[in-house]
């Protein structure tokens, strides 16, 4: 039905409807164009074709709604046996699953193919900020939580917010509810508020702040990765400043639960090929992504642990009961 409607819509719109054939591989980006999931679908889709894994262009469908929940339940309910379907996912997907934001859906209703890059978390401040290290910032929050406000690209309880709370938590500040955080529509928007001086710090993904770091509008206090990131070698990790936190916004895929093990293995293999391709390496460099390849069974384990961790934190800060 969906393809029929699509075809109708296209031919109603344009005389030349050249959209892909019905059997083409489809990648669902569970958000509107422009965001990270859309990016994942479009880049992986492009590379899949370029390295010859899929013969045709991968068709990207934007299925926005409920922060990915609409796409999630559509895949579970309607597309459970579709072997030509991949869906973009990130730590936001598992965060929402952990916080039961997908109307009761659980992580075991789909199969997790893998993550092939991570976007390391980063904490930045305006160029004229008095804070020189992540510890300066943490001490300021400890001294007076009301004096330091954070801007981020996710809603309250989202991954950007959790990064700040996890960071403070590991540094021994546990009064999570007193931390001031405002959620904006995306990382770039959050940066403009920080550059404008409306908030003292911004929390986001490294890929969102790269341009602003290079132009000198903001300074990064810490990157939340295991080691320093190539291309951003002068940003110290939180770990080396004494706060042991790694928060990667991984980029990856899930597929429907009902496909055969062979089909699942085929997708794991395809994703590994993308991860190893030169094109993907270039995409990662250009977008501030760090290599972070976890696929197949390892990834399914990772997702399980990740969800358990986020559930715990969210309970601690009272986002879920």
């Amino acid at each position: 039905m969906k393809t029929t409607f699509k075809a109708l819509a296209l031919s109603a719109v344009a005389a030349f409807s050249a959209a892909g054939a019905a059997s083409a591989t489809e990648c669902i980006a569970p958000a509107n164009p422009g965001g990270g999931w859309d990016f994942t679908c479009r880049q992986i889709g492009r590379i899949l074709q370029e390295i010859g894994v899929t013969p045709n262009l991968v068709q990207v469908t934007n299925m926005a709604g409920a922060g990915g929940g609409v796409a999630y339940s559509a895949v579970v309910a309607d597309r459970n046996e579709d072997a030509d379907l991949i869906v973009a996912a990130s730590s936001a997907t598992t965060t929402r699953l952990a916080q039961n934001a997908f109307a009761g859906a659980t992580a075991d209703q789909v199969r997790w193919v893998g993550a092939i890059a991570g976007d390391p978390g980063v904490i930045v401040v305006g160029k004229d900020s008095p804070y020189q290290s992540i510890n300066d910032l943490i001490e300021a929050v400890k001294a007076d939580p009301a004096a330091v406000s954070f801007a981020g690209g996710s809603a309250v309880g989202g991954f950007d917010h959790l990064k700040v709370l996890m960071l403070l938590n590991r540094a021994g500040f546990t009064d999570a509810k007193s931390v001031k955080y405002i959620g904006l529509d995306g990382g770039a928007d959050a940066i403009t508020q920080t550059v404008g001086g409306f908030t003292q710090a911004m929390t986001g993904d490294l890929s969102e702040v790269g341009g602003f770091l290079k132009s000198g509008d903001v300074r990064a206090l810490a990157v939340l990765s295991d080691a320093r990131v190539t291309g951003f070698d002068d940003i110290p990790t939180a770990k080396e400043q004494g706060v042991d936190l790694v928060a990667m916004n991984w980029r990856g895929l899930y597929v429907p639960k009902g496909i055969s093990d062979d089909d699942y293995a085929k997708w794991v293999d395809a994703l590994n090929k993308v991860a190893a391709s030169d094109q993907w390496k270039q995409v990662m460099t250009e977008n501030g992504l760090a290599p972070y390849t976890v696929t197949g069974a390892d990834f399914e384990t990772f997702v399980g642990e990740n969800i358990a961790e986020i559930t715990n934190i969210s309970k601690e800060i009272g986002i879920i009961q």
Partner: protein
Amino acid sequence: MDILSNLAMGFSIALTPWTLMLAVIGAFVGTIIGALPGLGPSNGVALLIPISFSMGLDAISALVLLTSVYYGAMYGGRISSILLNIPGDEPAVMTTLDGYPMAKQGFASDALVISGVASFVGAFLATIALMLLAPLLVQVVYKFGPADYFALYALAFCTLGGIGSNNQAKSAMAVAIGLGTAMIGYDKTTGMPRFTFGNMHLNDGISFLVAIVGLFAVAEVFHFIESHGRDSAIGVKLGKITVDWAKLWSTRWTMLRGTVIGFAAGVLPGAGASIGSFLAYMGEKAIARDPESFGKGNPRGVAAPEAGNNAAAGGALVPMLTLGVPGSGTTAVLLALLLTLNITPGPLLFTDRPEVVWGLIAALLIANIVLLVMNVPMVKIFVHILSVPSAILLPGVTMIAFVGIYSLTGSSFDMLMMIGFGVMGYVFRKLDIPTVPVILGILLGNAMEDNLRRAMVLSDGDWTYLFSSPISVGLWLAAALGFVAPMFLRGVLKRPPVPATDSYDRD
């Protein structure tokens, strides 16, 4: 002279027979997309991205094609607003207010020509402003904090009185319904769902597109069925296209004012084309000597919002290119396109990838000239598409409404919701309650609330924070003036106690 040599470089990239052909195709398809109710510029561009890739277009060609579609849709939105009283896309809502009465009075061709030229003036000047001012304007974005944005939205709603109806109380009620509807869904500040009744489809709130298509297109279909087509919006006929130069010339300052207001609104992320056309219309009405003629077929009521929304489309490219912050749904799609082409917009785009920026600007200028040619002398072609017999048009409108919404959200729930809005629109029409304020409430309500909540978080709940910056104080003063001035002026102008009603108010 830097700008001129850069622009020459841009044209040398963008001005080839091949790209010109793409611009013509894009402008044509875009105009149709804009004219069809429910299919706005963002869906149009999103639908064409895969096509442009399967055609194997390079970055500049793809940009030319898709920006032509983008600007084309902004032009096309006015056609169905004027002829059908159904806005083709969300920024075209304001154009219905005077465009449709003009068409009813037999001035459809004037309305189309004036709005076409206004679109051109708005878009063309905005593109030039983008070219000259983008690096400076980016500083303005940094100056706007939550309190300032809240004041901006307050300004919009304070100037709203009496829109689309003769009764201010009904307008106010309609706004309240719109704002209330906007509250449905996740609350960004606490992350909690509100008024969703556990239904996941309501978590993201109600899409204003669903509301627009329901309140306008579906309600129109109901009305058509009831009246057997008599007195209905569907099927206004259009005679020969003639240009009334005097009338056109009389709107020149209106177009310029609309352009300035629209461009400024477009530059601010989160404001965008809808508030641009809205403020342009309100501004024009506020300074007019005959404000009561607005909403009854005043040509300036067509020129202002069209110049405003097209200028805003250009303005929205400023934060998109310089900050990577999309100012509207459509620029979000263009941002996605740039990212797919491995171009990352941001503060360094102008210095790192000048060929992309200047190629894009040249493409926009080309698209505008193509669109002016296509939309003024050749507007009949598009009118023909909309003026098919009602036996075909009626099911056509219905089908496009459903297909448009389904292709956008992929959810049957939204189609049911759209029918619900259609019934609501029909009932409101019977009660003479305007539906435009409902749309504006839904469209702007979330951003307004989010900014209020952010301001309250930052200030620990101190209300004086809302008046703490010079920008916000200025906006609040303008808002207060916009609210009080009409009451004061009404006394001065000694309007008749019973306002005259026109036929379109009763249908």
